[in-house]
């Protein structure tokens, strides 16, 4: 009796969760389906989930005649550069805050906490003026510099917590052997922090890969567009060509899904650190 009730309740669990996940996933299935439809079959009544005459034409058109190969390259260059640069400067900053005592340390830390809490869009007007003054408009470098800065507060916060927990004894051993603090940082702190660095790298990469508003604002030159801006602009110009829009969108979100599914454990760790105290 008891055994039977248990299995029934499990069945109910699976039924509820599956219904819910259908709501989460159906929009994506519709998007994938539309990406494989030619224009004639887009938005027909009744809607069909399996395309009647599936075609790869949308992907070919997006990639070749609509320059999405170029936008993909721009996005990749910006996201990779941002990740490397932001990781380097955030790790150094976090290490400085975690392992040293110096005048002004608390001020720096609280300033970083403050910028974590303000809406990033609040800075866009002065950032736009600054980019004009420094000649950073219409350049991918301008995107990389601003993205790097935008990711510093959270990255520093997460890495500082990790560095603080590294054992001090190893550090003293290197100092006695005549090594300097920079040796400790590169030879010991960084290799020991690979999981934390991976978490921070994933978050930074995705943030840079998906960023829209600053890229839209800073860049007018169509050849310098990143994928999110290119997709939104394309949809604005070709209102009904949903097959093409979604083919391009799939190209943009596929790397993200792959990164997430393969590196899930770093992801979850980063998300929940700070939120849950065990």
């Amino acid at each position, binding site marked *: 009796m008891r055994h039977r009730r248990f299995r029934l309740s499990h069945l109910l669990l699976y039924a509820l*969760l599956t219904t819910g996940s259908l709501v*989460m996933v159906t929009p*994506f299935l519709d998007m994938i389906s539309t990406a494989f439809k030619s224009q004639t079959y887009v938005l027909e009544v009744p809607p069909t989930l399996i395309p009647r005459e599936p075609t790869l034409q949308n992907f070919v058109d997006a990639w070749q005649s609509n320059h999405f190969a170029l936008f993909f390259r721009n996005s990749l260059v910006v996201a990779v550069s941002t990740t490397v640069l932001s990781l380097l*400067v955030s790790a150094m900053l976090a290490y400085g805050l975690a392992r040293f005592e110096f005048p002004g340390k608390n001020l720096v830390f609280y300033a970083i906490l403050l910028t974590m*809490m303000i809406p990033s869009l609040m800075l866009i*007007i002065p950032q736009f003026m600054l980019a004009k003054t420094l000649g950073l408009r219409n350049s991918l470098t301008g995107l990389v510099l601003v993205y790097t800065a935008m990711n510093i*507060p959270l990255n520093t916060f997460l890495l500082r917590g990790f560095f603080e927990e590294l054992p001090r004894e190893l550090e003293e051993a290197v100092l006695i052997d005549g090594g300097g603090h920079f040796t400790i940082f590169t030879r010991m702190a960084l290799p020991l922090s690979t999981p934390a660095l991976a978490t921070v790298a994933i978050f930074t990469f995705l943030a840079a890969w998906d960023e829209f508003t600053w890229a839209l604002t800073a860049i007018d030159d169509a050849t310098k567009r990143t994928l999110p801006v290119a997709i939104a602009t394309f*949809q604005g110009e070709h209102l009904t060509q949903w097959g093409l829009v979604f083919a391009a969108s799939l190209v943009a979100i596929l790397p993200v899904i792959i990164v*997430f599914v393969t590196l899930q454990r770093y992801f979850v760790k980063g998300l929940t650190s700070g939120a849950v105290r065990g």
Partner: protein
Amino acid sequence: MPHARRFSATPYLFILPGMLFFLVFLLYPLVEAFRISLYDWKIMPGAVSTFVGLDNYLRAFKDDVFWIALRNTVLYTVVTVPAQMVLAMLVAVLVDALPSGKVLYRTLYYIPVITSWVVVSLLFRYLFDPSEAGLINYFLMHSLHLIAQPIPWLREPGPAMVAIITLGVWKGIGWSMIIFLAALQTIPADLHEASQIDGAGPVQRFFSITLPLMRPTVVFVLIMLVIGGFNVFLSVYLMTGGNPLHRTETILTYMYNQAFNFLEFGYGAALSYLLAIIIFVISFVQIKFLRRPIEV
């Protein structure tokens, strides 16, 4: 001690590169935004910006669209935050109770969170197409028989807000769910067993044991979601652009439109500072009243 404390440049060398980025691209813009908000700011070369004091802030209070934007922003937050939290908690509790397949379900609910706002906003424009062929209209008309005529979703303010809010909830559930799930897994199993022996049912156990133990996590999620709700921007910008006639404007879309479409940079900067003040006050109140210093 072998050597006395002396000034060392080492820590400053470590923080220097990061601080340069931080000061130039974050802290300076933060201060500069406030300065711009005090001016009738002109961006054209040669044009003179005039100091107007707090006029840009006073202008907001007399601006009907500002009040519409504030109302929409509050509406979005008040609806999406509880909806996300309740649904996310339900999913988290159910996933936690699964005998197997936890990672699969967690992933399915999390996919919208990792998908870019740009893509999902365009996707929801497509799903909420005003014609009968739009998936939502078709479903409401022919599967549920709730409506006889297609709803012109994004062309009218009320339905447009419904679509925007639906997207916000749909995209956000997974984030809260993953954090709730992590917190659920830290609750010791023997606590549950003990109360099971006392004869408490699953619902009673959830409200008397699980929820109180998760209080710090719930408060954290609440604070973060409220901040996120007030920051709603991209979905609105891409789905309606604040239209028709500014009726779906939120504070940040209105700020962005004022600055970059009408070149009203002073007014835009003032709007962004008003939003920051609102968020700061609300977060402060929540932290003060909801966070207990010591949790059991």
